């Protein structure tokens, strides 16, 4: 939605104190996960695009517990680019979310661009992504289309994204692509931890940020082809459940637990009623003969317990409510200065 022309300058509610620190246009953030990372190519290719677009840029390489050849490459880049290339490293791997937070601590760019550790996307797409931000978006995410990796991976990825869209109502087709550009403000308001890196666009959108998906040219894909370990699927599934819960029910846990619990109790309760009625008035069969009786009781009890968890959730939210602001003010016109009669278009 385009801003309405105003008789006075609106106070951008979220002009942070950090603005003083944002002296560059853009910071490229590359989390490095393995020793064979092709970061020299990434920094060269994307850096060249930033130069072409006349952006003041820098690059933060975050070594996620990785040393060896990747570290040498980073040192070479630092020697070549000087202060444009910054290097931070952890002693052990903490995951992309922590890498991003670390980069955010030292980055000087108004915009962060995250990229995988190899040239996954045609670097030329940077221009479109930055242009989209300039046009008013808070975040642009890449959608690899068409993809160049094996069909099995494409199928798995497509199913995952389809599931996320169905369950969570988002509109993203490629949450697994970490080629993204976003304003710093996004990280100031969206907590990124654990596996939330993947779901950053979803959560940002939920917070009211304007997130745009752009189709980009996919150059190559690293990583395993075929099926992953069982653990990967289990974690992914748990992530989906977690994200749905966190994006939709954070402030009303009982809505979630209560609905699930009531459903279970209702099923158990109806089954119980049916069995008792059947025994008493229909066939007089002993209840102990029926395993369904135990099942019914257990469902009922389980439902009640689920509701109990929801109530504890409510206690947590109540005690933390001051830290969880539910709304974001975009612009405000509420100062009390003297009247400034302006013609307004």
């Amino acid at each position, binding site marked *: *939605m385009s801003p*309405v022309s*105003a*008789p006075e300058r*609106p106070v951008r509610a979220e002009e942070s104190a950090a603005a003083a620190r944002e002296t560059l246009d853009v910071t490229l953030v590359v989390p490095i996960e393995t020793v064979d990372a092709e970061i020299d190519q990434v920094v060269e290719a994307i850096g060249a695009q930033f130069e072409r677009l006349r952006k003041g840029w820098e690059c933060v390489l975050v070594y996620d517990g990785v040393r060896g050849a990747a570290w040498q490459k980073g040192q070479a880049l630092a020697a070549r680019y000087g202060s444009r290339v910054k290097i931070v490293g952890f002693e052990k791997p903490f995951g992309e979310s922590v890498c991003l937070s670390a980069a955010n601590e030292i980055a000087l760019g108004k915009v962060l661009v995250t990229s995988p550790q190899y040239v996954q996307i045609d670097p030329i797409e940077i221009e479109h992504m930055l242009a989209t931000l300039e046009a008013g978006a808070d975040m642009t995410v890449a959608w690899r289309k068409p993809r160049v990796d094996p069909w099995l991976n494409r199928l798995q990825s497509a199913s995952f994204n389809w599931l996320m869209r169905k369950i969570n109502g988002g509109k993203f087709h490629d949450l697994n692509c970490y080629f993204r550009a976003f304003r710093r403000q996004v990280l100031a308001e969206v907590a990124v931890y654990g596996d939330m890196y993947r779901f950053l666009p979803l959560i940002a959108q939920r*917070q*009211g*940020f304007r997130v745009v998906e752009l189709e980009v040219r996919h150059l190559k894909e690293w990583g395993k082809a075929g099926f992953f370990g069982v653990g990967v699927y289990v974690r992914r599934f748990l992530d989906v459940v977690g994200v749905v819960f966190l994006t939709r029910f954070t*402030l*009303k846990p*009982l*809505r979630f637990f*209560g*609905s699930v619990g009531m459903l279970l109790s209702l099923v158990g309760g109806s089954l119980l009623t049916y069995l008792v009625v059947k025994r008493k008035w229909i066939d007089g069969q*002993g*209840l*102990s003969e029926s395993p369904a*009786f*135990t099942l019914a*009781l*257990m469902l009922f*009890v389980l439902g*009640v*317990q689920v509701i*109990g*968890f929801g*109530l*504890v959730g*409510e*206690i*947590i*939210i*109540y*005690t*933390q*409510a*001051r830290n*969880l602001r*539910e*709304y*974001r*003010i*975009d*612009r*405000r*016109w*509420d100062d*009390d*200065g*003297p*009247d400034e*009669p*302006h013609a*307004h278009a």
Partner: protein
Amino acid sequence: MAPVPDISVVVPVYNEEDSLAILYQEVRDAIDAMGARWELILVDDHSRDTSLARMLDLRSRDRRVKVLHFRKNFGQTAALSAGFEAARGAIVITMDGDLQNDPADIPRLVAKMREGFDIVAGWRKNRQDGFVLRRLPSKVANRLIAWVTDTPIHDTGCTLKAFRRQLVKNLSLYAEQHRFLPAMSRGSGAQVAEIVVHHRARRFGQSKYGLERALRVLLDLFVIKLISQFAHRPLHYFGLFSLPFAGLALAVLAAVADDAASWPLLVFSAFILFLLPAVHFILLGLLSELIVMASGVHKRSVLDRLVNRRPQEAL
């Protein structure tokens, strides 16, 4: 700097382009007639029509109109919450943006506040809405809310209410709690009164609520009871849930006492199954005690109560 207003009127706005000018005029006429200083805080909940432009238009003519614009649609509670935060008047009045509340009631709300109440709630005794879809569910819900929360209010759904500013500044609202404000504040000792207010039929736009809301309100009731009366002693609340199950477990035992031979397995499993939630709820209650204790919310609440004690700031 303009002088601090006596009365802040907070209005959540969502797609009310036709109503805004009239609303402003009515509010202005009503409060100017009292000779009070006021501000009108319009919180735009990311309207999709021209509401924001209309608001800014009003502001360009009268600086007492304040405008907050949400980044996306966050709902009525969030809008009120933002309005409360911005409000500076000693009395904060909330009302709907759809003209169904009548600003002419404001002087009466204020008069009642000056009798020494902390909250004065409006009661739409003659509602101008459909009976089956709006009035009946609302009536049932209100009875239930009044009974559960022990707050004698007929019409929790009426947005037209007046609050002492100190009170709303100390609240953190979330989810859909705005309708339960009186009940929640009573927990910390607020004096709540109610007066009958006018209710007008909708002139513009669409009604934004439906029947399914009543179901959600039902779940919310559990929460309100918990938060308004048991927030600082959750174990007691969970104890209430535990008790019936403990009773059932005992009843099963009692039943078997004189007839031990019949369905032993069944009796055993029933006993266990009833005992389980009884213990479970006690454990959850203890967990909640821990959460409350660790959060420090109990200390803050004592301060809130002290703030809410008289002598109050003059209204």
